[in-house]
C-alpha cells in the first residue's frame, strides 16, 4: 500500500516561534518525520515553500493584526485539518494581556512612532476566527505531544493527548505535591496535562502554561487560593499569564478581581 505523504504546512502568527521550533527540536525523529510527511510549507526550516492545499496545517501564534485576521481564513481554506499549536494559537498567548488594556497606549509605550505600528486592540486565538480541528496546548507545546499528534494522524488513530489535570501526571511521576507540602500556589489542578508536570518537578507551582483542564474548576481554585491568604491581585496575575484569555482562566481572574 503506497500512500502519498501528507503535506504539512506550518504557519506563524504573533508568537515567539517556540512552538514551531519544537518540530526542529525533535532531533531523534526529525529525519524519520521528514520521510513520513512532506513538509511543504515550513519557512522557519526551508526556503522551499510550496503552495497548498495542505493535509495538515499547524498554526502557531495569535491574531493581532487586520492582515492576520484575513490570512487565517486563507489558511483554513488551504488545510484539510487545521491544528492550533501553543497557547498563543489556542488562547491568544501572553500578548492577550492587552485585551484588558488600551493597546494604543501600550504601543506608544514601546515604540517612539506608534503610527508606524499596525496592530489590533486584541490578541485572539485562532478558534475565534476559523473553526479548528485540534488544539495542542502549551507554552510551548510539548514536542512529544506534537510528535504524538503527527504519528497518530499518520496511523489513523486518536492521539493520546489527555485533557485531564497536571496533577495526574505529577502523581504518576512520583512528585510530592508542592501545594500541600510547600504551600505554594499551584495551578496544576486546573491546568491541562501534557508537559509532564515540569514545574512541580522543579519545586514550584504550575503557572498554567497548558491552559485550562477539561472541566473548568478554575473559579474553585481561585477561591481556594484566596482562602489560603493569597493576595487578590496576585491571584488575578496567577490566572493572567500565557493562557489569560482562555475562558475558564479569564473567569477566575475576573472573579478574583471583582472581590
Amino acid at each position: 500500500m503506497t500512500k502519498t505523504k501528507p503535506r504539512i504546512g506550518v504557519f506563524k502568527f504573533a508568537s515567539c516561534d517556540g512552538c514551531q521550533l519544537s518540530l526542529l527540536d525533535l532531533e531523534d525523529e526529525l529525519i524519520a518525520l521528514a520521510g513520513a510527511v512532506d513538509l511543504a510549507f515550513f519557512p522557519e526550516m526551508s526556503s522551499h515553500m510550496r503552495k497548498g492545499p495542505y493535509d495538515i496545517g499547524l498554526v502557531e501564534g495569535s491574531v493581532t493584526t487586520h492582515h492576520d485576521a484575513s490570512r487565517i481564513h486563507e489558511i483554513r481554506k488551504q488545510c484539510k485539518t487545521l491544528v492550533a499549536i501553543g497557547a498563543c494559537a489556542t488562547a491568544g498567548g501572553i500578548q492577550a494581556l492587552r485585551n484588558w488594556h488600551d493597546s494604543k497606549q501600550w504601543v506608544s509605550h514601546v515604540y517612539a512612532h506608534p503610527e508606524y505600528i499596525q496592530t489590533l486592540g486584541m490578541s485572539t486565538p485562532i478558534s475565534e476566527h476559523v473553526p479548528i480541528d485540534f488544539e495542542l496546548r502549551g507554552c510551548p507545546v510539548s514536542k512529544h505531544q506534537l510528535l504524538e499528534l503527527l504519528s497518530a494522524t499518520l496511523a489513523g488513530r486518536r492521539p493520546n493527548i489527555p485533557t485531564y489535570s497536571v496533577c495526574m501526571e505529577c502523581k504518576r511521576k512520583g512528585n510530592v505535591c508542592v501545594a500541600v507540602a510547600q504551600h505554594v500556589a499551584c495551578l496544576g489542578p486546573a491546568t491541562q496535562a501534557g508537559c509532564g508536570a515540569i514545574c512541580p518537578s522543579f519545586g514550584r507551582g504550575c503557572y498554567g502554561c497548558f491552559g485550562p483542564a477539561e472541566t473548568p474548576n478554575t473559579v474553585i481554585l481561585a477561591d481556594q487560593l484566596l482562602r489560603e491568604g493569597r493576595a487578590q491581585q496576585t491571584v488575578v496575575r496567577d490566572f493572567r499569564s500565557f493562557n489569560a484569555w482562555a475562558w475558564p482562566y479569564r473567569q477566575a481572574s475576573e472573579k478574583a478581581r471583582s472581590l
Partner: protein
Amino acid sequence: MIAAIRRRGYEVIGPQVKDGAILYGPIQGIDALPIGWTSEQEPASYRLKRRSDAAMFQYATGPNSLKDFIHPSEIKLLTAERPEGAFRILPNDAPSPRYAFLGVRACELAAAGVQDRVLMEGRYGDPVYRARRGNSIIIAVQCTAPSGVCFCTSMGAGPRAESGFDLALTELIGAGAHQFVVEVGTQLGAELLSEIEFSDASDELRDQAREASRAAEAAIQRRLDTTGLRELLRDNFDHPRWDDIAQRCLACGNCTNVCPTCFCVTVEDSTSVSGETAERWRRWDSCFTLAFSYIHGGSVRVSTKSRYRQWLTHKLSYWHDQFGSSGCVGCGRCIAWCPAGIDLTQEVPAFRASNHETEGKT
C-alpha cells in the same frame, strides 16, 4: 539488615526525606532514613517537622505507598512490530524487580491486601502485579506516630499490623536507648533476622512495644462511622451534599492517585512516526477524568459531582459488593493530599445527618 537484604538481590525501598516529605524510594543504607524527622498532616497540608531525637520511623505515611512500586504508574505492556503488512506482538518481558519494603505500616499492608483481591485473586491475575507482589519482602514498622489525618482504627486496618509481613519492627526510643522489637512473620523473615545481631526481647520490652501501639491507637482522633455505610452512600445517590462537594472539588484526581487501594488504569496504544512499531502502555487512571467514562458520543460522568460520587461510593460502598471489603483503609492520604482539603470523614456524616434515600427511584 539492609545489607543482608541487598545481598539477596533485592532493591530496598525505604522511607526518606525528599522534596519536603517522607516518602518511599530506593535506599542504600540506614543513613538515608528520615532520622529525626516527622510530619504534621491536616487536610490539604503536609509539613515536615524536626524531632528532638534520632528516631527513624516516628512519622505517619507520606504521599506514596507500596502501590507506586507493585502497581506502577506507567508500564509498557507490549510492543508490536510490522515487518511488511503482517504484525507481531512481543510481550514486555522485562524481568520484574525484586523489592524489599522497609517501614511498611499496618494500613499499607491492609491496602496491599485490598489490591491483592482486585489484581490477583479474581478470575484473572495481573502478571505485573503478581510478579512484583510475589517477589517482595515486607519489613513492617508498627505505627507509633499517627498523624492528624489517620483513621485506620475506624477502618479496622491499624495501627498495629498482625500479619502480612516478613518481619515487623517496633521502634522504642527511651532515655538513652534506641531499640527495636522484632516480630517474625515468615520463614524468610526468620532467615533474614538470623543474619543480623539480635537478642531475645525481654517481657518488659515486649510490653513497651505493645504499649506503644496502644498509645498510637489512642492518639488517633479522627473517626469514620462505618455502620451501614455501604447502604448509606448507595441509597443517597441524589443527596444534595454531592452538589455541595462539587462546589469545592477540583476534580484533579489527586485523591485517587495517592490512595493505596485505587487501582484503575487506562491503556494507551501508540505508534512510532514511521508506523513500523507500536506500543501499548498502561497508566494509572482516575474516575475523575472525563475520558474514564467515555463511550462513543460522550462521557457518562460529565459533572464533577458524579465523579466525586463515583469515587466515594466505590470506595465505601460498591467495594463491599465487588471485593467483600471496604476500599478504604483509613490512611488519610486523600485528606492530606487533596489540594482543596476535602475530607471524607467530614463528608460522610453529612449523608447520615439527612438521609435522602433514592432507593426505588429510577
